[in-house]
């Protein structure tokens, strides 16, 4: 009987040797005369165990990891004999780190073959679209609204309201745009979904198109994600061949087609209006709102623009899951959030859980602290525009409002962990520098404020008139926060001000910082 072995093709697994392991498994099987089939999947998101490979057994998929190319042959032997192996982890679905999660969006990621539409359908794929096609626009919108889903890109705007606005705006052409410009450091959930379960994104966008009456969609993927570009292109071609895209999708009277567009290394293009400019072939200069993209978006037409994870949540919701989805979470943050643990963390990866889990549980318990073994000093939540939180704030629950109340944001759900060797004035400087480099240049607070911010923090770090210069930085941050056109200039103050507020001892001449680090 053919042995079925699953090896991730996720970029995170490939970066640590998954392709080499695949090659070695094939060679080792050849020498042993064993018949194997290697299925390349997405990642389950337990990155400290990648490459994590699995073999189908009557008791479930048995996982091994982290497997190097040098372990491949001995792991294969253990798979054949069913015997012990130091890298044997147990049945994948029973691993505590996976069992503790509530995987709604990531249910298939790491399980199915992302190149196989048949596999997607065998695991519940396209159930959402099937049901959506039996509903009218209002029916679909009612489900999306009832789920309580809020935009997962960071701003947390209710998805149902956004879609309804587009549905109610009449135009001869409307667009669906997927923001896959996942530029925040510490985030990779969009990448994982595109590489590991791309049909779900296609299905989510198709449902949006049916709901609002759009005929064309674009997925704008950053150029730093070549594997995701390849996976989405393959999925779109397969969906088109099967009649899920194109004229009369799934035998209905709706026409909808999709195209991947690749970014070109501009962080600001993750901002929705900048992304639309870029899609139109222009410089990624932010637009003033209003008009909202829902009224005048891509090429001036009504446009639904959502993050990958927002579209990815839709098929579950439309497949009869709206109420179930809304039952997860706390307050106005409903459903689950795919949280990404990154940086200096022992158990880094993707952890999808209902809103409400505390930062401390995520870092200490789920993340297992730092991989360097040193104490956690700071965590940055929400990417380069997110605040740095000290341990004193680890009781903050993962919830849009709770983070806002503590001058932070959950953004796209990325958490970067730093140990006690971090120099927080340097991190504050980096935030300003990053903003200066990536600013689109349209508004003055962002363009000039960030440059002055770098200079002023340099003075502080050199010990020059420290209290006065800290006051200047605070003043700059205030101007940027309230005077910038978009979140780049408007949110850069979060990391800077939080570093100043919680780690003031790092702001001063070098001797101070050296003492603080010891």
């Amino acid at each position, binding site marked *: 009987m053919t042995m079925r072995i699953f090896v991730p093709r996720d*970029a*995170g697994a*490939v*970066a*640590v040797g998954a392709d080499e392991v695949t090659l070695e498994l094939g060679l080792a099987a050849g020498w042993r005369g064993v018949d194997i089939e290697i299925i390349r999947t997405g990642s389950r998101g337990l*990155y*400290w165990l*990648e490459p994590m490979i699995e073999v189908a057994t009557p008791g479930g998929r048995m996982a091994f990891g982290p497997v190097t190319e040098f372990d491949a042959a001995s792991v294969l032997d253990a798979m054949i004999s069913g015997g012990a192996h130091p890298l044997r982890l147990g049945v994948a679905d029973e691993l505590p780190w996976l069992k503790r999660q509530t995987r709604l969006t990531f249910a298939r990621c790491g399980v199915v073959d992302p190149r196989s539409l048949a596999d997607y359908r065998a695991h519940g794929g396209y159930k959402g679209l099937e049901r959506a096609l039996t509903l009218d626009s209002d029916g679909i919108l009612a489900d999306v609204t009832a789920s309580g889903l809020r935009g997962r890109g960071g701003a947390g705007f209710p998805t149902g309201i956004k879609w309804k606005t587009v549905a109610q705006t009449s135009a001869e052409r409307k667009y669906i745009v997927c923001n896959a410009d*996942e*530029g*925040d*450091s*510490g*985030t*990779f959930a*969009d*990448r994982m979904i595109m590489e590991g379960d791309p049909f779900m994104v296609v299905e989510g966008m198709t449902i949006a198109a049916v709901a609002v009456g759009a005929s064309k969609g674009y997925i704008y993927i950053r*150029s*730093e*994600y*070549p*594997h995701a570009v390849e996976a989405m292109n393959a999925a779109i071609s397969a969906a088109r061949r099967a009649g899920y895209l194109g004229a009369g999708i799934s035998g209905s009277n709706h026409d909808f087609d999709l195209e991947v*567009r*690749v*970014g*070109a*290394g*501009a*962080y600001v293009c993750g901002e929705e209006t900048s992304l639309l400019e*870029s*899609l*139109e*072939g*222009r*410089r*990624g200069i932010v637009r003033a709102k209003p008009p909202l993209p829902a009224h005048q978006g891509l*090429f001036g037409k009504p446009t639904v623009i959502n993050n990958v994870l927002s579209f990815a949540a839709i098929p579950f919701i439309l497949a009869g899951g709206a109420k179930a989805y809304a039952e997860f979470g706390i307050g106005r943050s409903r459903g689950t959030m795919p949280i*990404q*643990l*990154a*940086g*200096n*963390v022992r158990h*880094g*990866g*993707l952890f999808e859980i209902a809103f409400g889990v505390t930062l401390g549980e995520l870092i200490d318990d789920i993340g297992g602290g730092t*991989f360097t073994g040193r104490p956690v000093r700071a965590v*940055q939540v929400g*990417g*380069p525009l997110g605040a740095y939180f000290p341990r004193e704030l680890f009781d903050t629950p993962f919830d849009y409002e709770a983070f806002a109340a503590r001058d932070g944001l959950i953004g796209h759900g*990325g958490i*970067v962990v*730093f*140990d006690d060797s*971090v120099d927080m004035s340097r*991190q504050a400087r*980096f935030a300003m520098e*990053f903003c200066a480099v*990536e600013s*689109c240049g349209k508004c003055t607070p962002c363009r000039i404020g960030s440059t002055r911010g770098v200079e002023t923090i340099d003075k502080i770090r050199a010990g020059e008139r420290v209290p006065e210069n800290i006051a200047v930085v605070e003043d700059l941050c205030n101007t940027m926060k309230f005077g910038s056109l978009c979140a780049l200039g408007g949110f850069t103050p979060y990391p800077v001000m939080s570093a100043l507020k919680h780690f003031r001892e790092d702001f001063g001449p070098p001797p101070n910082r050296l003492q603080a680090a010891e």
Partner: protein
Amino acid sequence: MTLTSEPWDATRGAEIIAERQHLEGATLVILHALQGAFGYVPEPAIPMIASILNLSRAEVHGVFTFYHDFRREPAGRHILKLCRAEACQAAGGDALAARAETKLGIAIGNTTADERVTLEPIYCLGLCATAPSAMLDGRVVGRLNEARIDALIAEAQR
């Protein structure tokens, strides 16, 4: 994998542009395709794009210069991109970047004198749970340490 690029040829450039001129908002797609073929966007291509898309040269130049990805001149034979963003900083990426600069004898953003290696920063490859990360000619590498970065550099120098 070595990056293979064809030398600039105006007829070939015109073909690449013409194949994509019908697309909505084609400028970025065309710039990517030109760079894919020639390894950079040759200066003479800018007015050609402008003319076909009915844009001004200034507009196309503006788009070309806005995005970090597009090159005005060829890169080295190998391009080594090191992630400099926060997650990789937290995992010791800064020290490895400094090591790469010393080994190659160039600062990030430059090409070695023998034109073998271009060393560039990249802001997040989305490999933040296997940081620090790098990309060599499109191949991703994670969990970098001194030995692994040395091996990458040696490979790029070959």
